[in-house]
């Protein structure tokens, strides 16, 4: 008997049947279990999101009227700088890493990450760096924007800027450790039956993301260290007064920070590609196209950085090169968007949290993508660079994209993470408020920018007052929208309906183990017999290996593992084509159909059962 089996048979269970593998205080320790670390990342990031969000509310309150009356212009710049930095480095990037930590080993059938201790270290660098950054608000805060361009960053206060540099260096280190882990884990720890082209698309996205982190972050670190020297020792790498070149900093900064926008969005591209098929009950449309477009985006993302510098005294050929490279990124991005739309087209779409946020993601991201192509056009960017048009664009991508994507992912995997379902009506309220607030806040900003309102200002021309007031009202709705989510998450975590192993009837490995997954993930490592997206073949709603494991009574080996047990009468032509996402030669060894004795029964529609309910017999007794 393996240790995993021991755990599985001796663990405690709550009164309503959710297994307990961890005590609450485990989450406050240096623990090398990837699931603990994943949760640590997600919760920490969310707390920082609330901090960054409060700053956004303060920013918008200041901008409700043209005069700088709510906070002083200095405080405004501090809030602005911290808001941007917190949202990027302490919310979106760590939250993506949190999802990756929790999901990657489960999705590829591994018991943990390749380097569990390094993984824990990567997480534990974040809270001190974050606290340090935020505490600077009460000492002397950085005021030069999240981009921190010299010479301004060199004359805006040494202490604040120094703290900003230090915390970013620590966060960058954490991010590199994390990426190294994801990369090696994905390449080395997959179960033998899973080839690269069988991986869930989230894994592909994390492969592409990790490559970007590993290539880009060291350059940022270089820029920050040189900036730190200029700041503290008085060197002149970037300081024109001493003969330095301020524009070189911008090149180094954006060499990381453009890829950083893909570091923030690619994991969610992956998550959406996994959420949509499960809920739409259809295979992902164009698996390879979506998988490889992540790689294409990651590569192209490395050669477009100077589109942030079109007005920085950039030579004409550079402007044209970066314009065209940026435009080309629209193609792989478009492939993904159309693939997602085609995935839900003809599916069976439920009106629940994951689906609504996933569709909201596509809808909002498309707007950010379109304005991105416009910004790539140099002549137009000369007009709108550094205006509210850019603020609108970046929030459609980061808020409408990354944050909507994160919510979709959280609603989708919450049952796996906690073993409990979230409340559906509350998630719909959350979505509606977020969607309205998002568009009310950020859509009008496009026009503000076009008409002539520059960004990063605490005071503005009174002719923009009305539109700004609308934005501010929108931002209060956004602030409000987090309340139903918070209540839902906290309450469901404690007292939500038990989820069972596979409440969404998903086909990827994480749904084949218990919810929450046991200490080493799988009692017996799963074998890939059903493609991750093989919906629509009649066998999708089967009881999975994990379900049996949770009923400790049976411990017979999973029937999924036996290729010879295919029922010869089961669906026809498509079967062979589809195994391995339809890209492998017909007649391969993988069996798309688990010969589960219950399968036939399970495929019958069962009208009384709420989709969200657990599918184990015990769970049914808990429902009305």
């Amino acid at each position, binding site marked *: 008997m393996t240790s995993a089996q021991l755990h599985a048979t001796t663990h405690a269970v709550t009164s309503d049947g959710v297994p307990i593998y961890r005590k609450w205080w485990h989450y406050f320790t240096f623990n090398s279990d990837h699931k603990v670390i994943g949760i640590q990342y997600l919760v920490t990031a969310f707390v920082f999101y609330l901090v960054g969000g409060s700053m956004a509310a303060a920013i918008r309150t200041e901008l409700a009227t043209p005069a700088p009356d709510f906070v002083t212009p200095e405080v405004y710049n501090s809030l602005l700088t911290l808001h941007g930095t917190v949202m990027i480095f302490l919310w979106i990037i760590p939250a993506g890493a949190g999802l990756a930590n929790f999901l990657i080993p489960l999705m590829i059938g591994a018991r943990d990450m390749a380097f569990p201790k390094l993984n824990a270290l990567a997480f534990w660098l974040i809270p001190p760096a974050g606290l340090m950054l935020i505490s600077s608000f009460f000492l002397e805060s950085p005021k030069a924007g999240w981009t921190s361009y010299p010479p301004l960053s060199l004359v805006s206060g040494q202490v604040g800027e120094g703290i900003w540099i230090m915390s970013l260096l620590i966060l960058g280190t954490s991010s590199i450790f994390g990426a190294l882990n994801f990369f090696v884990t994905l390449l080395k720890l997959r179960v033998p039956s899973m080839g690269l082209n069988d991986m869930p698309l989230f894994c592909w996205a994390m492969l592409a993301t990790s490559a970007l982190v590993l290539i880009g972050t060291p350059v940022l670190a270089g820029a920050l260290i040189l900036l730190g020297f200029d700041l503290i020792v008085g060197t002149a790498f970037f300081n024109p007064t001493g003969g330095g070149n301020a524009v070189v900093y911008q090149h180094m900064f954006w060499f990381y920070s453009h890829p950083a926008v893909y570091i923030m969005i690619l994991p969610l591209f992956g998550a959406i590609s996994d959420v949509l098929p499960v809920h739409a009950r259809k*295979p*992902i449309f164009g698996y390879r196209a979506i998988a490889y477009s992540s790689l294409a985006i990651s590569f192209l993302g490395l050669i477009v950085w100077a589109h942030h510098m079109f007005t920085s005294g950039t030579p004409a050929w550079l402007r*044209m090169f970066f314009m065209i490279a940026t435009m080309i990124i629209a193609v792989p991005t478009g492939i993904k968007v159309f693939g997602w739309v085609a995935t839900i087209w003809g599916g069976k779409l439920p009106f629940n949290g994951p689906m609504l946020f996933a569709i909201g993601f596509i809808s909002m991201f498309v707007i950010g993508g379109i304005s991105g192509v416009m910004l790539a056009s140099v002549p137009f960017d000369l007009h709108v660079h550094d205006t509210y048009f850019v603020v609108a664009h970046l929030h459609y991508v980061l808020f409408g994209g990354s944050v909507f994507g994160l919510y979709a992912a959280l609603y989708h995997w919450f049952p796996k993470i906690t073993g409990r379902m979230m409340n559906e009506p509350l998630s719909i309220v959350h979505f509606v408020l977020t969607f309205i607030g998002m568009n009310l806040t950020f859509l009008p900003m496009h026009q503000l920018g076009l008409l002539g309102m520059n960004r990063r200002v605490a005071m503005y021309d009174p002719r923009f007052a009305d539109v700004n007031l609308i934005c501010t009202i929108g931002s209060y709705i956004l602030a409000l929208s987090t309340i139903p989510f918070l209540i839902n998450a906290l309450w469901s975590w404690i007292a939500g309906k038990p989820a069972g192993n596979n409440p969404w009837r998903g086909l990827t490995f994480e749904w084949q183990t218990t919810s929450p997954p046991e200490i080493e993930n799988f009692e017996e490592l799963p074998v890939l017999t059903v493609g991750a997206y093989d919906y629509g073949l009649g066998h999708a709603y089967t009881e999975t290996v994990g379900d049996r494991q949770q009923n400790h009574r049976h411990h017979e080996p999973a029937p999924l593992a036996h290729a010879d047990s295919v029922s010869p009468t089961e669906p026809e032509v498509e079967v062979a084509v589809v195994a391995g996402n339809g890209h492998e030669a017909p007649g391969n060894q993988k069996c798309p159909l688990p010969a589960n004795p219950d399968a036939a029964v399970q495929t019958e529609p069962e009208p009384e059962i709420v989709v969200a309910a657990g599918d184990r017999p015990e769970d049914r007794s808990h429902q009305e």
Partner: protein
Amino acid sequence: MKHFVESSALAVKIPSNILTLLVGITLTLISLWFGYNHSLLPIAASREAELVDGLFNAMMAVSIGLFLVVQGALVVALFKFRRRPGDLTDGPHIHGNIPLEILWTVIPTVIVFIISVYSFDVYGQLGGFDPNATGDSSQVQVAMLPGEDASAPLMDSSRAKPSHHHEALGIGASPEDEGKPADLTVDVMGMQYAWLFNYPNAGVTSAELHVPVNQEVQLNIKAQDVIHAFWLPEFRLKQDAIPGQPSELRIKPRRVGEYPVICAELCGPYHGGMVTKLFVDNQQDYDNWLQSQIASQDSNQTTALVLDQQTDGDFLAPFVSDLGVTPDIVQQVLPRDRA
């Protein structure tokens, strides 16, 4: 079951029936109408603005089309393909469609290709490829700036002092005017939190920019302390003012009026207040203004002149505490070229 067949047929075949055609035509018309009838941009007051607006309107039309197609598909899907309660069956097993995938790879490629070519063309017409402003002829100088003194002895002196009248990155003369000097040259200096305009030929310095209508104006842009950005929204042009790295904009005002001049690069707490005015005057008004400036500068009375006579430290003194720095630092940071 009927549902199943219908929807899979839709997803597999590239839609080609009459209805699709009608929807397509309607979407195109809406997009074109919106692209050319929005009121999103301010007045176009220069030749450059007209060029950029043409580009923007075209991009807007394409964008609205794409927007409607994708959002429309999402909304239709959300209603048409709703899961009925209790339905636990799957959708059709469609995992791809190569012709369709090729189609939606090719269409965006063609769109961005066309936008790139159009942008390239507009950029050329703006004067982006004027050799004096492209960086091609100024690489030597850019490489050594601003440590000019240190590196000069190492360089071939004929290259170190190029023969061009002017070296800077930015937007230069339009192709027709390439090589011709501008009708008027103004030196623009950005500093926390003001713009200074110096008319070298007239010996006038002003805090507001006046230019005659329908004349080529060359703006040589510099920064004193930190990076600023010189933005004329009604001209659709922006250029960063970078300490130690001169840049330029060449503009052709077309419309008499008063327009904002805005700093668009974060330059400190009062960045939002770094705004002044651009007056596009007819020739008569412009000449009058210039004469009055010359007269008043002789008697040391304009604000502009007072500003100019202050040392940088004096000018910045009121802001020092706001900046969170000591006066020493301000002195260190400021170059001496105004002394």
